[in-house]
């Protein structure tokens, strides 16, 4: 009201807009910080609950059980010739009784396919292939003649210019009810399948109450449609033949910031949302899905720039549209180590793509936003992502411009401005430090305290160095989205893992 009154009494349009903007930004910023504070508490509760619940679990029981559900591991590969053999060997050594590994050679132009055929003694088989999900044509399917590799299938297909397209081909030939989607160059923990299938088998159910003898039991419980776990950077870790020997925080600055950011996003963000069943997405690097629901929801969209969140959104929407309860679960343990972009160019391309993907999802699924019919997704997940993820870089950028304007016109109250900057800075350092503490509660990943504290200290320089880059590349992504500029996939210069130092061209993450 005061803003409106001022507008009419003073008659100064720009001054009124300025005051209005300041109020909006203060409310917006404070509410965002409050949400982070609440998320920190929720994530701690969620992590403690998980740790208590799983402290007495003997995971080895499932390894010998004939009741274990089958899982298909789907890993697309594009020009991964240098590391493909050790990576596939690593995927074949999961601690799990019933799984298959499907490698999709997505039209590689190097010797990826030849290496797979030779090393694993693969032969082309006559395969009754049916396309449940859209993807580029599958040319051939290979199986190994060596019983040691009888879990392995290789699909050779026409390049679909996206991981989504290749993943759909993998889902089409998968034999089991659950599938794990990953990148072939990711290093996965041996217990990944056990730890990610557990949430599917652990969801609380209630006894069916039959009404007129017609109610199905499936309607009475929350079906887990996907599960995910924490990802970390593999950049400075010791890796031997696709196995992680020792975890370390990355030495180089850019991946080091990403490690910190990932821990914050998973341990604090997703674990917090997990508590209220509002997990927005499961990472493309590591996620397990209920195949029936993901196929019914249409699988991955190869046109999407944020295919992982898009899939979860469509699966959630499918469940809601069919009046079925569902949940997406997260486990707070690191099960996947992935190589983070080490150069600004590749990093920028990745972040612009993510930002563009978010804008695209908000645009495509706009009917969900603020729609109570979609429950938590419509009233929590989408509004949060719209207000505090999509709009944040724009508001921040406008804020900087406004700040410069205030400085130039000498309208700034410096003592107050400095107090507000310190407020935001100390709060952001606190949130990141808490996330790293929560991470330490789950497992002691780093051998020395120096490595742990060294990573924590990144929180102090993040607001000046890393955060501006994120904002810049996000704005670039939005610009590309609005102008419809064609995305250039480019090459991700892989640094190689462990002893492998050869650089491999591959598609950007």
């Amino acid at each position: 009201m005061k803003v409106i009154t001022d507008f009419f009494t003073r008659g100064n349009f720009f001054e009124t807009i300025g005051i209005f903007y300041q109020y909006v930004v203060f409310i917006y910023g404070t509410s965002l910080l409050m949400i982070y504070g609440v998320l920190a508490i929720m994530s701690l509760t969620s992590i403690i609950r998980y740790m208590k619940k799983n402290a007495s679990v003997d995971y080895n029981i499932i390894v010998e059980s004939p009741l274990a559900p089958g899982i298909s591991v789907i890993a697309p590969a594009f020009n991964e010739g240098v590391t493909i053999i050790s990576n596939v060997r690593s995927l074949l050594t999961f601690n799990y009784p019933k799984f298959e590994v499907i490698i999709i050679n997505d039209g590689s132009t190097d010797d990826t396919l030849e290496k797979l055929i030779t090393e694993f003694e693969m032969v082309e088989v006559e395969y009754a292939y049916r396309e449940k999900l859209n993807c580029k044509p599958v040319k051939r399917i290979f199986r190994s003649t060596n019983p040691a590799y009888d879990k392995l299938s290789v699909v050779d297909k026409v390049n679909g210019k996206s991981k989504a397209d290749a993943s759909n081909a993998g889902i089409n030939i998968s034999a089991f009810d659950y599938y794990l989607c990953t990148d072939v160059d990711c290093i996965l923990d041996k217990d990944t399948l056990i730890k990610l299938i557990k949430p599917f088998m652990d969801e609380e159910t209630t006894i069916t109450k039959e009404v007129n003898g017609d109610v199905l039991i499936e309607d009475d419980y929350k079906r887990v449609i996907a599960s995910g776990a924490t990802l970390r950077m593999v950049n400075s870790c010791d890796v031997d033949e696709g196995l992680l020997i020792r975890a370390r925080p990355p030495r180089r600055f850019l991946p080091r910031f990403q490690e910190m950011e990932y821990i914050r996003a998973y341990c604090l963000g997703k674990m917090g949302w997990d508590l209220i069943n509002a997990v927005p997405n499961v990472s493309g690097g590591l996620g397990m899905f209920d195949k029936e629901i993901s196929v019914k929801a249409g699988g991955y969209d190869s046109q999407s720039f944020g295919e992982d969140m898009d899939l979860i959104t469509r699966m959630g929407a499918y469940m809601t549209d069919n009046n079925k309860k569902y949940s997406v679960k997260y486990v707070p343990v690191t099960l996947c180590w992935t190589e983070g972009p080490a150069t600004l160019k590749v990093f920028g391309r990745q972040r612009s793509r993510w930002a563009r993907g978010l804008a695209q999802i908000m645009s495509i699924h706009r009917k969900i936003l603020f729609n109570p019919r979609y429950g938590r997704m419509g009233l929590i997940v989408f509004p949060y992502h719209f207000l505090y993820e999509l709009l944040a870089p724009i508001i921040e950028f406008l804020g900087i411009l406004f700040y410069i304007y205030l400085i130039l016109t000498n309208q700034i109250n410096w003592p107050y401005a400095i107090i507000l900057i310190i407020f935001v800075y100390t709060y952001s350092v606190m949130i990141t430090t808490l996330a790293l503490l929560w991470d330490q509660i789950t497992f002691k990943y780093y051998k020395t305290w120096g490595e742990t504290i060294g990573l924590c200290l990144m929180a102090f320089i993040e607001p000046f160095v890393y955060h501006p880059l994120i904002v810049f590349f996000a704005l670039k992504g939005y610009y590309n989205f609005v102008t419809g500029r064609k995305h250039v996939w480019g090459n991700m210069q892989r640094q190689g893992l462990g002893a492998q130092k050869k650089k491999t061209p591959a598609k950007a993450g």
Partner: protein
Amino acid sequence: MWSDLVDLLLSAYEQYSLLPLFIEIALAFIVIAIIATITAYTSILVRRYRAYVHQKRVAYLSPKIEDLITEQVLLNENMDKDLPIESIEFDKDALNNKIYKKEEVRQILIDTLIRYRKNFRGEVGELLRKLYVDMNLQEDSYKKMKSRKWEQKIRALSELTQMDIAIADVTLLPLTNSRNSTLRAAARNAYIQLSKNEPFKFFDIATEPILPWDQLEMFKIITSSKDIAIPNFARYVSYSSNKSIVSFCLKLIAHYDQQSAIPAVTNLLETKDHYFRANAINCLGKLSAESIEHKLAFMYNSQPIICQVEILRAMGAIASGKHLDFLKSEFLYSFNFEIQMAAARAIISHNTQASRAMLNELMETTDEGTKLIIKHCQNPLIKY
């Protein structure tokens, strides 16, 4: 000095209260954030230090505990004299060593004894149990059992079960129906292992479900324990109103090949729950219940896809040869790929002269797409 400090604080507060509200809020949060950050750093360091100290302590105590077990149990001379385990005495001085009075050490001792007992059965296992009892360690476990914390109760259940120490029904049975699923599962597993006469008694009173993960654990315990009296699970299939128990019993019936349960399982074919019905059909297939094959064929057309696929699989498992024409017709004329695959696999799994002749005929008379399904299903390289 104190009065100066108080004056300073009062003057700071006066100045603070004159500030605009949003600046007051910001200042308050700055203080909170700084305190929280320092606390977080301290916690990280303290946690690491505690873990380090604990590790050191375990490294120091483990050899002593292992020496005790080796001397008192593994190298116990009385073991060779064929004495009853109960009459074998330990060296009281060794057991009464004051280091074993500390709670932390006793816990390490319990954990070590459990580890050993997992690896040793027979007389050595019994002697390990006696050592646990003689050192009064079961009192530590009982104490945890009385704790208000459910995770402590679970720990106690695990310790007592591993050491084969009885827990009264009045204590254990209510826990088998706990609202806490983790505690419930642990109590149920303990009950099966500890109850000598009626290990499945809690099936009769269970109103809470057995979650799929808990079924894995329970299945392992039931199928790997030699001294559990296996009942006829048809009883629970017929009378239990808890669907998860019925579903679990179907798996046990199939595992133990309880042919006498076929009538009870057949009654489940009338249930309105598709998933449940599919489980029952799957169980009948595993039991090779030829007597119900005709019934399955009769009900086939009115079933959803999931049940139809299970019927075809069951016919493949029963492989009586009486419904080969039915399978052929489903293979040739179904529009559903999954059904075609299941029908082809069912024909192949018959592996009789008639089925082989049928496959040859199909290979000669059908189109390439249909032939491809047969080749796919026959290919030994395609495992699933």
